[in-house]
């Protein structure tokens, strides 16, 4: 196959000559690919961010189940867990959700302790920055950026009144706020001393919500899991790998769902293009007739048509890619991101990290360009088939 530059030039000018028709197809194609690329970019970026945060999680999370529901874990279970070989540390966590009726939002309340290591590095940084003992003494708390905003809107400038499980008020002072690097999780978070957390939740102080276990050697995880299962058959062990897989599945499902819808619209588009190009105007017929009379072969016309459609859809592809990158990573994808962030009134206002990989581009290319080229194939063959003498007669 020889490459003919003049043919390419002809194709380009032919596209420009057709003006409105080209523009119509170009715009719709750009819009479709843009939509698709944006959704895939968003889901990939969020998936990436979650994977990063999963990497910092402790290896195992233990939940106690009773009648299929999660219940609190007695603190006396911590010691036997620590005795298992290979376990580096066991951290009982006290956390839960607090419903703030006025704004209709849920806060994630996490109890922290001065002498205890936090289960996550980013959390540890926040804890280190503040004096937890002072928090305990002055009944203070540290809030996420989203929480702070909500509280300020409701005229809680420097304190907040929690309603405890007993129905009493518990005043906590806002000692500071934080913008964790991973704001997807920390936006709705309130950190307060464990003692206050027990009080607010109405939990007995010899229990914890769940237990996280750090394992030094990842190779030993399966053995440790089976040991824990033997020791406490009522505890469910969630490994880091489980969390990662479920994230992957959720986001594959979400983008897959959207993609299935996209396939329908892509085929509709396919039909429209097919139909539009099949009906040749008398002008186009004349053009082909003249070209053939000038000595163009069927192969030349087919090639020229191929160049035309390739320029058109590849141009649309590149433009759509650029637009969706700007839309997702610069403007933070208004509207579409809510598809992924989930239903919660206190939506985390996080920034989508710039995450971009080559296979994604290949995927987008395979989803868009072949469909368009396929739809123009038969119509352009039909056009190239016309006979010069019949058309020009």
């Amino acid at each position, binding site marked *: 196959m020889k490459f003919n530059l003049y043919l390419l030039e002809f194709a380009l000018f032919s596209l420009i000559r057709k003006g409105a028709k080209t523009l119509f197809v170009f715009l719709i194609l750009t819009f479709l690919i843009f939509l698709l690329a944006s959704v895939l970019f968003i889901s990939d970026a969020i998936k990436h961010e979650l994977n990063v945060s999963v990497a910092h999680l402790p290896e195992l999370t233990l939940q106690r189940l009773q009648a299929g529901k999660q219940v609190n874990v007695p603190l006396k279970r911590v010691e036997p867990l620590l005795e298992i070989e290979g376990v580096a540390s066991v951290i009982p966590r006290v956390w839960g959700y607090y419903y703030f009726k006025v704004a209709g939002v849920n806060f994630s309340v996490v109890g922290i302790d001065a002498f205890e290591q936090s289960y996550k590095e980013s959390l540890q940084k926040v804890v280190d920055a503040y004096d937890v003992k002072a928090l305990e003494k002055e009944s203070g708390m540290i809030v996420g950026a989203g929480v702070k905003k909500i509280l300020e809107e409701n005229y809680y400038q420097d304190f907040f009144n929690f309603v405890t499980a007993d129905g009493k008020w518990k005043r906590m002072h806002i000692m500071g706020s934080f913008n964790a690097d991973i704001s997807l999780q920390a936006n709705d978070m309130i950190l307060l001393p464990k003692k206050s957390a027990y009080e607010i939740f109405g939990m007995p102080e010899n229990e914890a919500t769940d237990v996280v276990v750090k394992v030094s050697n990842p190779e030993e995880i399966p053995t440790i899991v089976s040991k824990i299962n033997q020791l406490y058959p009522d505890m469910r062990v969630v490994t880091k790998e489980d969390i990662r897989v479920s994230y992957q599945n959720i986001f594959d499902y979400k983008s897959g769902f959207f993609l299935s819808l996209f396939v329908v619209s892509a085929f509709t588009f396919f039909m429209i293009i097919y139909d539009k190009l099949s009906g040749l105007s008398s002008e186009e017929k004349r053009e082909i007739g003249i070209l053939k009379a000038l000595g163009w072969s069927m192969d030349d016309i087919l090639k020229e048509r191929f160049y035309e459609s390739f320029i058109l859809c590849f141009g649309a592809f590149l433009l759509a890619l650029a637009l969706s990158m700007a839309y997702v990573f610069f403007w933070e994808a208004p509207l579409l991101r809510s598809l992924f962030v989930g239903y919660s009134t206190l939506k985390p206002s996080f920034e989508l990290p710039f995450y971009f990989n080559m296979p994604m581009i*290949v995927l987008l290319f*395979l989803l868009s360009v072949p469909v368009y080229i396929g739809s123009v194939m038969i119509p352009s063959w039909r056009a190239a088939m016309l006979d010069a003498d019949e058309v020009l007669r």
Partner: protein
Amino acid sequence: MTLTPEIIAILMLDGLFLFFSSIAFVLSLKLYWSWDSEATTLLQYRLEKESYLVGLIIKYIFMLKVPLFLFFIYTCDTLSGIITGAMCAAGVVNSVDFGLFLLLFKLLNLYLFGFWLLLHVRDVESELQPYVRQKSLFFGIAFFFFVAEIVLEILFFTSLNISKIVSCCGTLFSASTQSSLSFLFLMENWMIVSLFYASFILMLVGFMVKNGAVYLFSNLLFLFFAIVSLILFFSTYVYELPTHHCPFCLLQSDYYGVGYFLYAALFLGTFYGICGVVIATLTKGFILRAMRFSLFFNSLYVVMVSAYVVVYFLKNGVWL
């Protein structure tokens, strides 16, 4: 079944391919039955135009099949992240009984489509189009392989079960298991490696004496021994691990995706060696060009795999 974006893309393109190849199939049959280059009928006139469409469709499918094949491997690789036990594409492909067949069909179809295209190029070079009936018949047969591949692929993706535990490549390609490949491990390494180099030398000889038959035969041998020796011997040098024999992990980014280059060189080389020579013999064309292409890519492959071994030896002073 899971519907990840990658799987949806592959299935959608499969749908497109099925639609277009069916058109090409029907036209090919028509061409085969009624093509008569001597005739001056309206039918023959129409057939000549339709033969363009067949060529167009097959070119379109082939152009996409090549990147799609790599994309398929890549998809299996990403799926290995969510399928329990799988660590690379090997586990995913083998999670279904016919996974290996699917892969073989995919490869075979690439060769078949490539063969058709070479024949097509030779055909349209001449104004008489002397090979239209042959190539139509050929596509008529290849179409069934293609449909088989698509059906297998759809079955493959629908029967993927993410909660089922599969074997990883470490067990699939090891001497100890009762897998279908374990018989390969009965052979000595030095034997298979010398056979590999011997077939390459035979190829060089075939090239020097310009004998198509020898060249073709040596290429078939080379393809077989290259894959076997890659699994048994060369892969261990890429991984620098004497127990790891997987031909799929080569494709992962941990090894800089070197597998893509290795396989591309090997398949291009043997493709030109096998199909190119067959075509050149059938159509009495320039056999030398196909051989040169073939020899270039095959040598590239040999240099690449040998370099891994040599570099390893130079670095560590011992063989694995």
